């Protein structure tokens, strides 16, 4: 499997303590299925706290150990601010828009988290 392609997970709204566990579960399910590179679409996320950030850091390490990466798609200034404050803005590959879905297996795996 190419290291640049991987399934896309979409989350929206406020990513906090109530949502972080299911986000983690969702991402780890994809890791367990053999994916080492994951794309997380935060374009419609409005809030992200340290518990959500903790999930991203943990999953990022798992992706890297498997030879892949956790990509974040994010434009919301509040979320970018959280990444910058914690020194994590350079720890993830960041994208300003969704990658082209053609030619990857993202179409099947795309699921809305709500």
């Amino acid at each position, binding site marked *: 499997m190419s290291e640049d392609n991987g399934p896309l997970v979409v989350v929206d709204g406020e990513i906090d303590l109530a949502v*972080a566990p299911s986000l983690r579960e969702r991402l780890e399910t994809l890791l367990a299925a053999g994916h080492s590179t994951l794309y997380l679409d935060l374009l419609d996320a409005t*809030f992200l706290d340290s518990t959500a*950030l903790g999930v991203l850091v943990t999953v990022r390490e798992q992706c890297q150990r498997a030879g892949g990466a956790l990509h974040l798609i994010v434009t919301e200034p509040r979320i970018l601010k*959280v990444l910058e404050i914690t020194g994590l803005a350079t720890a993830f590959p960041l994208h300003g828009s969704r990658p082209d879905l053609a030619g990857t297996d993202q179409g099947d795996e795309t699921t809305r988290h709500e």
Partner: protein
Amino acid sequence: MKRLDMSDRDDRGGGRPEVIALSFPARADLVALARFTAASVGARAGFDVEEIEDLRLAVDELVVSFEAVQAGGTIHLRYTHDAGTVTIECTVEPGLRSHPSEGIAGGELWGGDGELSRQLLDALVDEHGREQRQGRPCVWLRKHRANASA
């Protein structure tokens, strides 16, 4: 980490500080209450939109800092604002852990987030701390409006 100085609170600016109090069971889906209330208090204190967002995230960090230990307990929040300064204190009343899986605690999920939380609080508010209050842990923060008169 500083100690919370209560002494100068009631007469700053010569006005009456407004106090808002909120208590809720330590459950993940109730943390939004703490954020919404912070936004209301920030607006009353004259914070701008960015400052209000900072305050919303900061109070979230106060509340989640209690997660692992206190599932089944009750979160008590006290919001005060006076002359453009908002103070938020968060204490926890321990409860019987009858439904551990339902509480705010997420077990090992949350391990190691304390450092991220501390970095965020350092950046978002002017002062924050953790202390014992009548035998119970209390975390607090204080944030001034950029154009505060005090």
